[in-house]
C-alpha cells in the first residue's frame, strides 16, 4: 500500500476544489476540496445524508456542481458535452442497485456497451468480457441470465460491465449495501483485487474492514462537508476531530 508521501509522485486523477452543490435551497456539498492520486484507493465514510453519493456523482457528472472546480484526469468538468463524454469514458461506476438487463445473458450484459457505445468488434468485446468475468470470479456463469444469479454474482457482473469500458477510475457507491451478508465478502474481494491491480478507486461504503485494509486514505464527511482526511491508521486509532470520534464510537 502506498503512503501519502509516495502519492505525491503520482499524477492527480481527481481534483475537487471548493466544490459547492445545492439541490434547490439545500446545500448538499459545502466547500469540498479533495485530491485523489493515480492508483490511490480512497474510501468515503460518513452518516447517511452526509453527501457521499452526491460527491461521487458529481465526479462523473451525474449531478452538476454549482461552484468550485472538479478536474478528472486533467479535464475540467463544465457544461461542455465533449468533456463530459470524455470523463464518462474514463470513469466507471458501480451502484448499490446492480441494474442488469434481464433479457440478456451475463456475457451480453458485459459486452453491450463496448459493442454499441465503443463500437468494439464482437470478438474482441467477448474476449475482453470473458477475461473480466474470470477476474470477478464467475467465468462459468457467462451464458446465464441475471435472474439466475445471486445478488453478489450480479453485482460482480455489474463491476465487470463497468470495467469492460476500460475506465481509469472506478467509483463505487455502497456496492454491498443491497446484498445479503454472506455475499458481501465476494464483492469486496473483487474490489480488493482491483485495488491491488492499481486501479484508482473512490469507494463509498460502510464496510469498515474494507476501509481499514484496502484504503490508502479515508475521507470522512458529515452534513456536506469533509470533516477529516487521513490514513486508515490515523483515522481509526487517532482521529483529531470530535465529529469523527463520535461517528466512530457509534459504528465500531
Amino acid at each position, binding site marked *: 500500500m502506498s503512503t501519502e508521501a509516495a502519492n505525491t509522485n503520482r499524477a492527480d486523477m481527481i481534483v475537487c476544489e471548493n466544490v459547492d452543490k445545492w439541490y434547490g435551497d439545500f446545500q448538499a456539498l459545502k466547500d469540498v476540496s479533495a485530491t485523489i492520486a493515480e492508483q490511490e484507493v480512497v474510501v468515503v465514510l460518513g452518516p447517511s445524508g452526509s453527501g457521499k453519493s452526491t460527491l461521487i456523482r458529481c465526479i462523473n457528472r451525474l449531478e452538476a456542481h454549482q461552484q468550485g472546480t472538479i478536474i478528472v484526469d486533467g479535464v475540467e468538468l463544465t457544461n461542455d458535452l465533449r468533456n463530459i463524454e470524455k470523463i464518462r*469514458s474514463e470513469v466507471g*461506476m458501480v451502484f448499490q442497485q446492480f441494474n442488469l438487463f434481464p433479457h440478456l445473458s451475463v456475457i*451480453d450484459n458485459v459486452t453491450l456497451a463496448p459493442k454499441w457505445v465503443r463500437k468494439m468488434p464482437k470478438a474482441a468485446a467477448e474476449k475482453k468480457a470473458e477475461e473480466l468475468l474470470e477476474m470477478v470470479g464467475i467465468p462459468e456463469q457467462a451464458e446465464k441470465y441475471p435472474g439466475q444469479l445471486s445478488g453478489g454474482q450480479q453485482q460482480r457482473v455489474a463491476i465487470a460491465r463497468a470495467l469492460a469500458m476500460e475506465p481509469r477510475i472506478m467509483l463505487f457507491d455502497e456496492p454491498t449495501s443491497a446484498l445479503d451478508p454472506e455475499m458481501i465478502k465476494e464483492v469486496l474481494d473483487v474490489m480488493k483485487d482491483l485495488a491491488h491491480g492499481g486501479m484508482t478507486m473512490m469507494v463509498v461504503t460502510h464496510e469498515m474492514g474494507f476501509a481499514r485494509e484496502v484504503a490508502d486514505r479515508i475521507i470522512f464527511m458529515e452534513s456536506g462537508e469533509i470533516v477529516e482526511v487521513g490514513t486508515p491508521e490515523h483515522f481509526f486509532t487517532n482521529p483529531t476531530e470530535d465529529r469523527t470520534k463520535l461517528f466512530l464510537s457509534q459504528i465500531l
Partner: protein
Amino acid sequence: MTKDNQLLGFEPAKLTKRLVAGASCILLLSILASLMLGPVSIRPDRILFEILDRIPGISIDSGLSQVEAAIIWDVRLPRIVLGLIVGGLLAIAGASYQGVFRNPLADPYLLGVAAGAGLGATVAIVSGATNGEGMFDTLPIAAFLGSAVAVGITLAVGGAVARSTSTASLLLAGVAVASLFTAIQTYIQQRESTTLRQVYSWILGRLSTSGWDEVIMILPYAAVSVLVMIAMRGTLDVLAVGEEEALSLGIRPERVRWLVIGAASLAAASAVAVSGLIAFVGIIVPHAVRLVVGASNRIVVPLSLIIGASFLVLTDLLARTLQSPAELPIGVVTAFFGAPFFLFVLRRSDGII
C-alpha cells in the same frame, strides 16, 4: 415486461440467425402467395420463371400472357412492395417507440402522427386538391405534412418539459396534440359532409396503388428511418438498463431518445401518408416477436421489420380476396385480427404490463 426469457434454450446468437432466416422464409412465401392469388390466379412456377426472366442475362419463357405479366409487374408487385414497406415501417416504429418509452403498449401513432395525418388528408380531400395521380397526388403529401406538424408540436411542447428522466410529459403532449388535431379534422369533415366517404375510406386504411409511384415516394424516408432505428437498437438495450447506468456507460440518453423517436415518427408518418391509418400492426407485431424472443431491442427491432412486412402483405391478400372482387379496407382486417390478439396479450400479461 420483465418476463424472463431463456430464448428457448438456444444460444442467443444462433437463435437470432435462425429466427431471421425463418422470418425471411415467411416473408418470401407471403410475397409469392400474394403474387399468385387474386381475381386472376397465376401458377407459382410461371411467376418464378417470369421473375428469373427479368434478371439481366437470363432468358426464360414463363408462358405468361402479356396481361398476366402486366398484372404481376404493374398491379400486384407494386402493391406488395408497398405493403412490405408500410408493414415493416409500422412494426419497426412500434418496436422502437416501445423500446424508448419502455412501454409495450406504445403505438407508432402515439405522438400525434395519426391525428396529424388525418387532418392533412382531410384538408386535401375537402379542398379538392387530390387529383389521384400517384406521385403528384397531394393527399399523401398533405398527410405527411400533417403528421410532421403534429409530431413537431408534440416534441417541442413535451420535450421542453421532459427532462431526461421523464417521458410522461411527451406522451401527455402527444395525447393533447392528437385531440386538438382530431377536433379540427372532425370539424372540417362535418362541414364538408359530401366528402365524408372519401375521408373515411382514407382513415380506414388501404394499400391501393397506381403503379410504383407511392413506393418511390416513401422509399427514401423509409430507408433513412429504418437505418437509424436498426443502428440504435443495441443502444436502446443499454438505455433499458437504467438512465444512470446508461450515462455512466457513456450513452447520452437524451440524444438516443430524440434520434429514435424522430426516426420512428418519420417512419410512421411515411407509412400513414401512403396507406391511411392501419391499426394495430405497430403493437401486435413487436408484441408477438417479444413473446417468442424476449425483450431485447437488439433482436425485437429488426425482427419486427421483417414480420411486420409479411403480416401486412398477408392481411392485404385477405383484404383483397375475401370479398373479391370488392376490397375490404386493410385497416379493418388488421383490426379484426389485431384487437383479439391484443386482448389475449393483455389478459396473459395482466399485472406485467
